[in-house]
């Protein structure tokens, strides 16, 4: 059954599974039914069941992943639309981003160490809040395992997207700008896509959070880590 690993079939399967996941989520309104997570689980189950390798899957999957980079570039559009709002509150934005970035690195490193993670795993977690390409670059430079970072980053994004609005409701973060910013800062592009679902303002500030935290994390992680040692 060579057809089971045909790249076009893999693409069709991914589209179909994602469409079903979206339908499930919109019908059932369960935030843990994240379409990315549900699709990945269904595809992993398919690969295990048919004994098709992940390499075969990626023959089709790479054409989907390819669009991540242009999609990040496209975030420049919502960012541009909010430029005047950004200029008006530049200082609050920079301060909250700086705090979010440093607190994110310090907390993940301390908790992981406390629970007995090995040094290479701890280093792989430091950049977990930011978008995959930046996170992997940072992990490489601090001596972690980049593929593990990629996996953790996706999970953090899904987790942040799923729980974000509930956490913010409980902690009285109600301002749309603050909500978008928090989601983008903590959960990169997945949080941003969740924010896009709510409103353009949420989406724009989420992409801003993703960008600034990405820049800060790339610049500050090595220094913050050396201070923690």
């Amino acid at each position, binding site marked *: 059954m060579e057809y089971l690993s045909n790249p076009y079939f893999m693409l069709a399967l991914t589209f179909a599974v*994602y469409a079903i996941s979206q339908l499930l989520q919109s019908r059932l309104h369960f935030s843990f039914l994240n379409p990315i997570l549900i699709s990945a689980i269904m595809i992993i189950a398919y*690969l295990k069941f048919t004994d098709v390798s992940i390499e075969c899957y*990626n023959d089709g999957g790479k054409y989907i992943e390819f669009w991540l980079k242009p999609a*990040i570039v496209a975030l420049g559009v919502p960012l541009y639309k909010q430029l005047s709002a950004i200029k008006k509150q530049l200082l*609050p934005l920079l301060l909250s981003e700086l*705090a979010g970035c440093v607190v994110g690195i310090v*907390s993940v490193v301390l908790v992981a160490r406390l629970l007995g*993670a090995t040094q290479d795993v701890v280093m792989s977690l430091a950049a977990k809040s930011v978008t995959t390409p930046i996170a992997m*670059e940072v992990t490489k430079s601090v001596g972690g395992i980049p593929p593990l970072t990629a996996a953790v980053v996706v999970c953090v994004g899904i987790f942040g997207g799923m729980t974000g609005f509930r956490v913010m409701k409980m902690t009285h973060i109600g301002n749309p700008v603050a909500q978008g910013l928090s989601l983008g800062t903590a959960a990169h*592009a997945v949080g941003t896509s969740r924010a896009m679902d709510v409103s353009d303002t949420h989406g724009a500030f989420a992409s801003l959070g993703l960008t600034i935290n990405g820049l800060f994390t790339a610049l500050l992680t090595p220094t913050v880590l050396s201070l923690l040692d």
Partner: protein
Amino acid sequence: MVIQCAIIFGCLALGELVVWLTGIKLPSSIIGMLILTLLLQLKAVKLRQVEGMANFLVKNFGFFFVPAAVSLMLYFDIIKAQWLPIVVASAVSTVIVIVVTGWIHQLTRKYL
């Protein structure tokens, strides 16, 4: 649509060029995003020349992550060995980042 793709991929290519020329440790896509924002601000690119394609890409962002999420299965053994610190540290830290970023932003916009 062709012009829209040309602009978006043009910005990405410029981002790649910046990385290649300077060796800067930032992804080309983030630099490309900043270039696109700058071009829009300078009116070198008009909003309607990119908006359709950009909206399509941004609205379907989640879908492009599916293959990366599937690749998780490659790291099941490392994750299995150290799942507790990985899961707890990531989850706790993510909640902390959301709360700290949101609170500081709400406080500073009120008092600054």
